[in-house]
C-alpha cells in the first residue's frame, strides 16, 4: 500500500500523489465539504497553493476552517479556532449542505461501482455481514446535495466491484438520467482519484472511464484492479507528476 512513483528529484508516495491530484481539482473560492484524511489534506494543500480562498467545511460544524496541520479527527479544536464560524451539526446538514451551498464533497468508500455508487456499510449480507464497516455518516446527503463529489479510494478488485454489497450513497445510480430522476440537486461524482489513475464519468451513460494514469502506473494495472470491464478514454493522459513545490507544501502540512 506504499507503492511509490518516481518524480523529478524525489519520490512521492501513493497518498501524496492522490492528494496532489485531488488538490488540483479544486478551484479558488470553492466550498468543500471535507472528511478527515486525504480529503482534508488535499483541500488544505489547494488552499496553500492555487486556491487560497477555498472554504473548508467539516461536518463537525466548522465553516471556513484553516487548520495548519491536517486534523486527526473531524472535530479537532484547531478547526473551531481557525474557522469563520462554528455552528451545530444539525445546522451544517440543513442550512449548509442540504441547501446546496457546498460545491464539492469528498467521499471515500470500501466499494464503488461503475456508476460511482458507493458502499461504506457492510461487506457481505447486511444482516450477517462478513465485515461491518462504519456506515453512512454524512455520505448519503453529501452524495445527494453537494454540487459535485470527488471520490478518493485505492483501486483493487475488492473495492472496484461490478455490484455493491450495499448501496450507502448514490453516484450516477443506474446511469443515464436515473440520478436526475431521483430528484437530487447535485451532479454526483465527477471524478474518482485512485492510486493508479483518474476516472471520470461518461457524460451520457455516467459510467466511469479511465482518463489518466499516474506516472509509473499502467492501463493494464488499472484494468486488472477493476471488477468491471474498465473502459479507457481514447485521449488518456499521464498525470503530471507532483511538482517540487506541491510536495514541499504537502510535506510541510503533514509533518508532525
Amino acid at each position, binding site marked *: 500500500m506504499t507503492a511509490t512513483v518516481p518524480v523529478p528529484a524525489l519520490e512521492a508516495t501513493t497518498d501524496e500523489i492522490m492528494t496532489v491530484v485531488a488538490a488540483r481539482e479544486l478551484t479558488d473560492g470553492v466550498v468543500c465539504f471535507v472528511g*478527515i*484524511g486525504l480529503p482534508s489534506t488535499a483541500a488544505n494543500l489547494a488552499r496553500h497553493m492555487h486556491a487560497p480562498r477555498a472554504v473548508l467545511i467539516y*461536518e*463537525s*460544524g*466548522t465553516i471556513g476552517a484553516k487548520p495548519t496541520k491536517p*486534523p*486527526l*479527527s*473531524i*472535530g*479537532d*479544536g484547531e*478547526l*473551531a479556532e481557525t474557522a469563520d464560524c*462554528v*455552528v*451545530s*451539526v*444539525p445546522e451544517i*446538514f*440543513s442550512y449548509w*449542505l*442540504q441547501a446546496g451551498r457546498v460545491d464539492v464533497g469528498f467521499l471515500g468508500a470500501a466499494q464503488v461501482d461503475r456508476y460511482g455508487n458507493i458502499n461504506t*456499510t457492510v461487506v457481505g449480507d*447486511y*444482516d450477517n*455481514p*462478513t*465485515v*461491518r464497516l*462504519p*456506515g*453512512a*455518516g*454524512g*455520505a*448519503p*446527503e453529501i452524495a*445527494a*446535495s453537494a454540487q459535485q463529489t470527488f471520490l478518493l479510494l485505492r483501486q483493487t478488485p475488492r473495492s472496484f466491484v461490478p455490484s455493491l454489497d*450495499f*448501496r*450507502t*450513497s*448514490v453516484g450516477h*445510480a443506474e446511469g443515464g438520467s436515473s*440520478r436526475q430522476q*431521483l*430528484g*437530487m*440537486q447535485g451532479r454526483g461524482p465527477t471524478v474518482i482519484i485512485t492510486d493508479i489513475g483518474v476516472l471520470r464519468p461518461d457524460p451520457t451513460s455516467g459510467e466511469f472511464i479511465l482518463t489518466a494514469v499516474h506516472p509509473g502506473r499502467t492501463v493494464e494495472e488499472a484494468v486488472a484492479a477493476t471488477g468491471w470491464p474498465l473502459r479507457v478514454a481514447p485521449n488518456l493522459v499521464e498525470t503530471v507528476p507532483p511538482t517540487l513545490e506541491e510536495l514541499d507544501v504537502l510535506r510541510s502540512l503533514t509533518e508532525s
Partner: protein
Amino acid sequence: MAAIISLSEAVAEHVRDGDTVALEGFTHLIPYAAGHEIIRQGRTNLTLARMTPDVIYDQLIGVGAARKLIFSWGGNPGVGSLHRFRDAVENGWPEPLEIEEHSHAGMAARYVAGASGLPFGVLRGYTGTELPEHTDTIAPVECPFTGERLTAVPALTPDVSIIHAQQADRTGNVGLWGIQGVQKEAILAGRRSIVTVEEVVDHLDPRVTVVLPSWVVSAVAPVTHGAHPSYAHGYYDRDNTFYRDWDVISRDRGQFTCWIDKHIRSTATFDEHLALVRGQAAVMS
C-alpha cells in the same frame, strides 16, 4: 433546576436498565466519565443512541451493556474500525446487537424533532440508498404544496441524554464552547439529562456559545477531565495516542475485558481511572 451532585449519584438516579440512552459529543466533549460510570454500575439492556458510536460505545457494547444501537457512523475516528462494535454485529459477542442505522443528517433531524416537540423531522436524505430497506424509522413524506417527495424520520427522544461541557454555574446553568455538535438538541430531546462539567464556576466564561439553562437539565456532575480521551476546548487536548492504543486494546476479547476490569471496574472514580491510564502512559513513553 439541575441538582449538582456526584456522577455516581447522577447515573444511579437517572440511568436505568432498559433505557434509551444518548451520550453525545461530536469528537469534542465526549462524556467518557459518564460512560464509564454506567459500566461501573452495571446497567444492562440499554438502547444506545449516538451519531458517532466511537470508542465510548465500543466500551459499552463490549461489556454487554447494550441490546441495541441507534447510530450513523461507527468507527474509531482517524484510526479505523471499532473492534467491539464489529465483533457484536459480526459475531454476536458478547451478545447480539440490534442496530438501527441512519445517516448523520437523519440522526441530526431526529434529535432536532425531539428537541422541538415534533413527532418527525423532514430532510432530503436516504434517496436511492438501501438504508430504508433495513431501517424502519425512515419513511417518505410528501410536500403538501409542491408534491415533492422527501424523507421523514421520527423524533429521537432518549429516556436520558448525557453530555460533557466545560462549565456550569452554581445554579446549574451549563455552558460550553468550541465544536458544539448535537449536544444541545440531545439534551432538549431527552426526558432526563445529565451533564458532566470540567468545573463549577461563579460565572460562565464569556466564550460560552451554548447555554443550557439549569431548568432543562436534571443533574450536573463535576468531573475534571471527564471527556478524556476526547478533549475539552480551553481545558485539554485530544489524547490521540489513546485512540490509537484503543485499536490494540480492543482487538482481542480477552485483552479488552482485562482492560475494562482493571481500568474501569476496579477504579472507583474517573480520577482513579485517569491516574491509572496516565501512569501507564508515562511508563510506556
